[in-house]
């Protein structure tokens, strides 16, 4: 399915930001915790490995930390439900705005092949970075940022500094 005859313009970014901030605040007020994304992906990886090779995940960190004690499915997890919501919310907004399109977003000079290779590579690197930093832009930058946690702000500074420094390497992909 492809929309895109006349997709609506994007929302004012500050208003969108406030919307996200309210969602984050609701998480704090209702649950006493913030948002996250990489944690849900960790649960998915642990569940997958546990299904294929259960001996490998027994008594082994980090796997066992995401698997619970076996009485309930590890996928019955706050972050897993939240990331499902993120996916649904994105779909809903895209459909309403006429922005749903089977496509590949990339810079004008990039090929589909290079874009997908860099997407996989960048994703791999981010997966490692997010595990080490105990979260990603949602779990550390947004959540910890709002809580004024030292580690989270170090993460933000590190990530943005590194992004700007590494940007010249990928100029051909984006500009």
């Amino acid at each position, binding site marked *: 399915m492809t929309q895109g005859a006349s997709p609506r313009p994007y929302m004012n970014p500050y208003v969108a930001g406030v919307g996200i901030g*309210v969602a984050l605040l609701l998480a704090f007020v209702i649950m006493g915790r913030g948002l996250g994304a990489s944690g849900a992906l960790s649960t998915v990886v642990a569940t997958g490995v546990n299904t294929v090779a259960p001996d490998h995940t027994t008594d082994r960190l980090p796997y066992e930390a995401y698997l619970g004690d076996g009485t309930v499915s590890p996928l019955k997890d706050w972050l897993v439900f939240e990331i499902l919501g*993120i996916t649904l*919310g994105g779909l809903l907004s895209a459909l309403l705005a006429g922005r749903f399109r089977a496509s590949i977003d990339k810079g004008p000079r990039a090929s589909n092949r290079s874009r997908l290779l860099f*997407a996989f590579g960048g994703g791999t690197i*981010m997966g490692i970075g997010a595990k080490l930093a105990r979260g990603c832009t949602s779990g550390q930058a947004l959540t910890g940022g709002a809580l*004024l946690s030292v580690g989270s702000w170090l993460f933000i500074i590190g990530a943005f500094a590194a992004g700007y420094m590494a940007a010249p390497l990928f100029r051909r992909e984006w500009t």
Partner: protein
Amino acid sequence: MNAPFYEFGLLGDNASLLVALLIGIAFGFFLERGGLGNARKLAGQFYLTDLVVLKVMFSAIVTAMLGLFWLSKLGLLDLSRVYLLPTYVAPHLIGGVVFGVGFVMGGLCPGTSCVAASSGRIDGLVLLGGMLFGILLFNEAFPLLQGLYYSTELGQVTVAELLGLPHGVLVFIVVVAALGSFVLAERIEARTK
């Protein structure tokens, strides 16, 4: 009002999963509204052509930060019962740097890649796969990374506590920094148009 509700036992575990879903929907909805499901817009941050990442993220942080402060101040929320993420200096810094490199390379982050994938973006789906792979690599390499992972633990500490500033003063500084950065961002974008 006794908040956080879950901390006061006002919410069961099944209800909290429903809350997760609904909050996630709102989160994903506004991410897509702001255009953060589009890798090209996200990457534009690092080439100073499209600073939407700064605007959306910093607005969200300031909104939630002000909400936490004032709801607490008004006695509606017990801030000490909100889980403060612990600080590990080296893992947070190094993890951040590694993440940042991957971010400008891939153009999406974990949350936004889900939004991209659900709006049909194949690169979002591929990036999601990359992240699962990266997490697998980390898990397998964990015995080697364990030392770094648990190092330089400062515990749960806010920037205010670290600098010896009153909490409210830091809130003020962050608001001013955010507004200042927004003004700067508008100027930069106007110049690179």
